[in-house]
């Protein structure tokens, strides 16, 4: 059997895609999280929400068929699938805050042992604003953090976030190219190992303490 070699981001996107079930309403953040959509079958009945105002986000249109009034939250041109609905920001965040969004996939700067996420600012360095991130983390039914395991050799999974939090709520799952980790009331539980990654390597790259069950399996990918 030939084994495909994926980039770290590709591994993350493919693993996150397996969390998505038919019929779900899903919001994908800008960047890495948006790559998840490439790995969902078109007939899965999954609706993607762009928080700027569409349910039923479709692929990028062919050149010359763009509509300046139809973009995703990153400002890129998109299409609308059959059955799509336009919504204003009050409805969009009503769906998010009201628990109607089945899943949000966001990037992260840090996640800590309590499962708290920091992903919207680095004081004194980068203050872009939280956009919709705080509502998404506070309101979505499941919050999945999709991020590379470490940044420039520094652990991003830490005992306690040093950056300002995005929400006080515990996220549902952390997916990196090295591991799938579930924050629980007892702490961070290692659920799966990345392709060819050992428990020791994961521990070494993780600053927070990990609860490691006997023989965590290697992750499967979409």
């Amino acid at each position: 059997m030939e084994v495909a070699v994926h980039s770290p981001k590709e591994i993350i996107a493919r693993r996150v895609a397996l969390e998505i079930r038919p019929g779900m309403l899903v919001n994908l953040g800008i960047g890495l999280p948006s790559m998840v959509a490439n790995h969902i079958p078109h007939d899965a009945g999954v609706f993607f929400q762009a928080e700027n105002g569409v349910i039923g986000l479709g692929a990028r249109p062919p050149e010359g068929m763009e509509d300046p009034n139809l973009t995703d939250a990153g400002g890129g041109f998109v299409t609308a699938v059959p059955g799509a609905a336009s919504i204003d920001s009050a409805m969009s965040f009503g769906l998010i805050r009201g628990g109607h969004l089945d899943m949000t996939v966001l990037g992260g700067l840090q996640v800590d042992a309590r499962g708290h996420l920091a992903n919207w600012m680095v004081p004194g360095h980068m203050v872009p604003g939280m956009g919709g991130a705080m509502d998404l983390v506070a309101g979505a039914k499941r919050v999945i953090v999709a991020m590379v395991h470490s940044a420039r050799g520094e652990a991003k999974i830490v005992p306690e976030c040093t950056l300002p939090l995005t929400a006080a709520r515990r996220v549902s799952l952390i997916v990196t190219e090295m591991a799938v980790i579930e924050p629980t009331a007892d702490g961070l539980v290692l659920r799966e190992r990345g392709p060819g990654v050992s428990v020791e390597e994961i521990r070494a790259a993780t600053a927070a303490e990990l609860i490691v069950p006997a023989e965590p399996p290697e992750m499967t990918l979409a």
Partner: protein
Amino acid sequence: MKKAIRPEQAAEMIPDGAVVMIGGFMGVGTPERLIDALVARGVRGLTVIANDAALPGKGIGKLVSAHAIAKAIMSHIGLNPEFQKQMIAGEVEVELVPQGTLVERIRAGGVGLGGVLTATGLGTPVAEGKRVVEVGGESYLLETPLKAEFALIRAYQADYAGNLCYSLTAHNFNPVMALAGATVIAEPEVIVPIGVIPPDSVKTPGVLVHHLLARAA
């Protein structure tokens, strides 16, 4: 009946230092011709309530480049490096508000609510200085209403009664801001005679709209 006005006439109504809501998300659904007219007349010291600061050269980004903004209440400013610079230089004061909270604060201002309770922002810097209210054993932040002297909104279609329809992701903050401006100026892509828009297609009733911008020449 609303007689359509030219962008310059609209810009003259809006004094320096005004509190202005502007629709749009990264420039999509933003009234570009109104903004161009404001920049052309050299407006200064605006307080702008909007989702974001857009990009240089686009939408609200043009007001940023023209140094027309003294204060911003927005959810995101990260894609406009000029605005970041002005903020760091202390030229502009920025209040960052989570996007869902921002739209509810504007709606509260528009529909006469004294505030709303939301869990968004609890345990984060957003909660600083805010009242926490318990309801049903859960904690919420008390978020207060936002209103503006002017709401500058972009629409897809208008009739001369001021009724407005919006298109796709160009809805965003526009319908809610139409409720919260003391004076509402709408920039539609087209204006049709009264009676052409079916009542069920109207998203902003004309009674909320004070001025319509005439089509581009």
